[in-house]
């Protein structure tokens, strides 16, 4: 265990033509913490994730994973370094069963397993963790929205990661469906996993984040303890809008 933060970015940035999608983002996530990343649409949240996981190459700045510079490394290298992610638009391997979907990650993940049968066994365990235990033989196409997201979870966990990046895993879920995911995240955290959660669902962010980072037009607007950040007028103005504030005040009085 290195003392260095699990993930640290220094002046990370990416421009597309004239547009700066992500601009000079610097922060770090200490081991075992949950970082919530919020920001209005087009604030660069997803691009930020893609920069960390190597799906998009940064045009400036650095990405350090456990103190080691991984700037511009290929996604698989990042994955092997212990970083797993989910995709905003779920990306299951359609030709394979749910079990096989997870097995891929086990075969090629950090502790890459060689034998197929072994991988399939472990896949079943991971599926149980996320509550898909019974659906191993199904085609991912047939899954409900919630289950599809769980599968996305399972594929990431299959890598046995140190750091987990969740890109809007709760978007489009019903309240009843959000709870279990929150439980799962808390449970993973308790196992010492470091997690970055990109979310719109405030409730979720408040419930699980130790730290919150607010992105606005690609820049870091502010960051810190959830409650203080969420009461920061700039944040409210840029993102939450007045009504939310009023509701909170009413709630307190």
């Amino acid at each position, binding site marked *: 265990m290195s003392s260095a933060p699990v993930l640290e970015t220094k002046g990370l940035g990416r421009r597309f033509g004239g547009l700066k999608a992500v601009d000079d983002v610097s922060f770090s996530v200490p081991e075992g913490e949950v970082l919530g990343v919020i920001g209005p649409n087009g604030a660069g949240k997803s691009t930020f994730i893609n920069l960390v996981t*190597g*799906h*998009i*190459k940064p045009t400036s700045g650095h990405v350090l994973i456990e103190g080691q510079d991984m700037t511009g490394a*290929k*996604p698989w290298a990042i994955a092997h370094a212990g970083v797993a992610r989910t995709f905003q638009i779920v990306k299951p391997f359609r030709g394979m069963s749910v079990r096989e979907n997870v097995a891929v990650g086990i075969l090629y993940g950090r502790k890459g397993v060689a034998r197929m049968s072994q991988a399939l066994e472990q896949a079943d365990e991971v599926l149980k963790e996320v509550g898909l235990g019974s659906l191993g033989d199904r085609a991912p196409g047939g899954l409900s929205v919630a289950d599809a997201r769980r599968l996305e979870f399972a594929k990431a966990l299959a890598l046995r990661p140190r750091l987990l990046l969740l890109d809007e895993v709760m978007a489009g879920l019903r309240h009843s469906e959000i709870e279990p995911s929150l439980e799962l995240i808390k449970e993973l955290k308790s196992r010492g996993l470091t997690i970055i959660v990109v979310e719109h669902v405030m409730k979720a962010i408040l419930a699980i984040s130790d730290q919150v980072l607010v992105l606005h037009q690609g820049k870091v607007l502010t960051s810190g303890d959830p409650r203080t950040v969420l009461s920061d007028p700039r944040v409210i103005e840029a993102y939450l809008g007045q009504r939310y504030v009023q509701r909170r005040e009413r709630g307190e009085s």
Partner: protein
Amino acid sequence: MSQFLQATIYGLLQGGLLALIAVGFSLVWGVMNVVNLAHGSFVILGAYIGWKLNSAMGLDPFLGMLVAAVVLFAVGYVLQRWLINLVINGPIFITLLLTFGLDLLIVQGMNIAFSADYRSIKTSYAGDSLALGSVRVPVGRLLAFVIAVIVTFALVALVNRTRTGLSIMATGMDRGAARLMGIRARHAYALTFAIAAALAGMAGTMVGTVGTFNPAAAGGFTLLSFVIAVLGGLGNMYGALVGGLLIGLVEAWGGQYLPGTWVNALAFAVLVLVLIFRPSGLVGRAYYAARQEV
């Protein structure tokens, strides 16, 4: 020097014609992501129509090409609307195979209908040439070139200015959204394909006037269209024009200064290199990313 000039002129004139052939191909590819392997056979079909009209009723090919355009427009519309649309959402090699099958049908059909004999459309003037000092400018090719360029620009205008054109573009960029805006994707696609076929037919008549053709020549034109479309960037109509002229020049110069027939390899070398180093084409950006980001 005059040798160089002569080659350049000739290359440019040839290039203009190639551009007209390729622009439709590029449009179809760009808008609905169909690589039409039967494109060359449309060109030859146009040539035969022009030839028939000329030999049967002495119609001048530069008028005959209008008829060819109309006929192929119809053919194109029907093919897309009721055949290609059936597999349009399939993986790429499905549409490739379908159009390949079409190519077999059309080429063999022409073989049976017109025999494999070489034909050429005779005019009193196409063979003459204007002398500019030591350099000759063939009348027929010059005419073809001018028409090709005009038509290409007209097409650009049609697509960018008219409602029809915009509906095509919109469908090309995002079919779902276009549908929400009340655009009939089926119709828009069929229209696109019809336009491409019509242009190919026009070009074909001119090809038949300045050169010689038979059904077997179809493949070559498809291949050139590939190269040009990629050079210009998919769906980029000005790009197709530039690509056409470029290929015309490359082949003319290559033929001039390369030994043997290395020139044939040249076009493909250019193609592959462009794909590797500037996959979105030489002019502007293509419709969608050519590369994996990963």
